[in-house]
């Protein structure tokens, strides 16, 4: 789900760096105020889980491929700001060390997955947990994949309108919204089901260890 380098125009990634920078500073401040030594090992484990989940590609019908993100659980347990920092760290490592995702596209990926995905997962869990906690966890997992997918589909689909040559040839990414929205959202609607189930399983496992009480 990460957008690689060369697909996003500077007209989009430069402002995105500004916005993400402000959000990272705000998140770091909140993290410093609320974090203690007991939280570190738990966040380390959940971040490593996110990293591993994002690296393992699942082949999809039609020849494409997708991966889980695992970010709903840290968002539910630690809140969206902490999850945003953790996922941003994971994305930065993937881009800098392994060439997955991109450096220019890092803020777009981080804002979509880390901030929007984690916030939606956390909010949906909070809204639904008193109705049915398993449904709340499933919804958090499903939305944590599909909300970022929607944002990234829009970001990619806007590229032909943002950056094209005088004769209309797209400079960065050639497909518009009518192509990117179905191409990205349909597979991720399926991947979200797996992510929802995974969120329930991981949350229940860490709940038994008493991690969710902190």
């Amino acid at each position: 789900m990460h957008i690689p380098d060369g697909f996003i125009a500077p007209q989009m990634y430069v402002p995105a760096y500004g916005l993400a920078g402000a959000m990272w500073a705000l998140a770091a401040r909140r993290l410093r105020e609320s974090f203690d030594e007991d939280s570190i090992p738990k966040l380390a484990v959940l971040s490593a889980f996110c990293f591993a989940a994002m690296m393992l590609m699942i082949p999809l019908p039609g020849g494409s491929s997708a991966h889980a993100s695992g970010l709903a659980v840290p968002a539910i347990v630690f809140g969206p700001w902490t999850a945003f920092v953790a996922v941003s760290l994971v994305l930065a490592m993937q881009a800098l060390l392994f060439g997955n995702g991109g450096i220019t596209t890092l803020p777009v990926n981080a804002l979509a997955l880390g901030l929007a995905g984690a916030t939606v997962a956390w909010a949906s869990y909070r809204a639904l947990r008193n109705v049915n906690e398993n449904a709340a966890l499933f919804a958090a997992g499903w939305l944590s994949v599909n909300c970022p997918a929607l944002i990234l589909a829009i970001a990619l689909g806007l590229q032909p309108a943002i950056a094209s040559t005088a004769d209309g040839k797209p400079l960065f990414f050639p497909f518009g919204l009518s192509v990117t929205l179905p191409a990205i959202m349909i597979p991720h609607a399926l991947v979200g089901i797996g992510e929802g189930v995974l969120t329930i399983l991981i949350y229940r496992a860490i709940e038994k260890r008493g991690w969710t009480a902190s």
Partner: protein
Amino acid sequence: MKLAAIASLLLSASALLPSHADAHDIVHDISREQAVVVTFSYGGAEPFSFESYELFRAGEDIPFQVGRTDALGRVAFPAPQPGSWRLKVFSESGHGADLDFDTTQATAPGSCEAPKLGNRLKALVGASLLFGIFGLLNLFVKKREVSP
């Protein structure tokens, strides 16, 4: 006299017809040449097959070659001479890569191959690094106050 002039003009024009028709004829030549082959896959496993690509000579805006990867996720091109190239592959779902590479060293099969690190190994290395980073972070966070 006038009739003779028209006749000679028509004759001249008919003499030009075959060469005019040649301009619309696409001739072909089949040969075996060495090609540079770049292979793409999802995480080193599933081939990135039948997806669009654009290949540029370094510094040029007009593509040298465009097309789709083959069933095995490969882009092959007979580089006219060794040099720098930019290859952009992309799918409708936003997957892809934007590579800059040099074929100067690619004189033998596989000699310009990018280093491969399997995704499982990457996940292991990345997870280990994350534990290391959080371990360092642990040195700087506040201690939880223990009530007496």
